[in-house]
């Protein structure tokens, strides 16, 4: 039983440790990042989608990291460029991740569904690009 608890602690503690390492960097830089859960959810979504699409778990790992990067880029843009409230931005990021995962991973994701997923993802990319352009015009 003790061995089960210890191995379970390693298994579930690794994800907490990795998320905390990322949080630690932003905390040391003076930014309170409450959107860590949103980053984790978006990374799980991207990693799962790319692994289901390509069948390569290493590409999925890379995609998970890139999704976390994108989510953190939103947070950094709002906090550093727009001087928004850090706590409110973090909570919004958290809700955004929850909405994204429940929207894209509705039911079970089979191979026939992954093309629909990719279409949705490209649509999301287009929306974000439009949004970034809109803000670069507004700030100017």
């Amino acid at each position, binding site marked *: 039983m003790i061995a089960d608890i210890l191995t379970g602690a390693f298994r579930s503690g690794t994800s907490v440790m990795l998320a905390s390492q990322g949080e630690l960097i932003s905390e040391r830089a003076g930014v309170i990042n409450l959107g860590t859960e949103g980053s984790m959810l978006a990374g799980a979504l991207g990693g799962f989608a790319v692994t289901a699409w390509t069948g390569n778990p290493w590409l999925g790992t890379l995609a998970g990291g890139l999704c976390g990067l994108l989510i953190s880029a*939103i947070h950094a*843009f*709002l906090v550093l460029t*727009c*001087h*928004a*409230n850090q*706590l*409110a*931005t973090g*909570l*919004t*990021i*958290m*809700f*955004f991740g*929850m*909405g*994204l995962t*429940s*929207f894209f991973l*509705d039911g079970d994701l089979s191979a026939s569904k992954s093309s629909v997923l990719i279409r949705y993802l490209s649509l999301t990319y287009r929306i974000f690009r439009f*949004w970034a352009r809109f*803000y670069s015009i*507004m700030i100017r």
Partner: protein
Amino acid sequence: MAGIAGMIEIAGIEGRLRPATGVNYGYLGFLAAWMAWNHPLRLIVSAFVLGMISVAGNSLEIGSGLPSSSVYILMALVLFFLLGSGRRLNK
């Protein structure tokens, strides 16, 4: 006040106590207070807006089969734009 809100939620809407009751309501309350710039009368409007978006998820689930929590995307986009426009409002 938050305790009264929880009591009303249980006694009036749900009618039973579940572990998943009101999981995110505290976070939504924080965001509503931020949207209202800590003003009690504006808070009524912002809480109404957030509640309207949350309830829209139910009809989304009934109408198009999407899970109701995907309405958080809409809520997050609204809040992103509000957060990003904060600097312009402060000018």
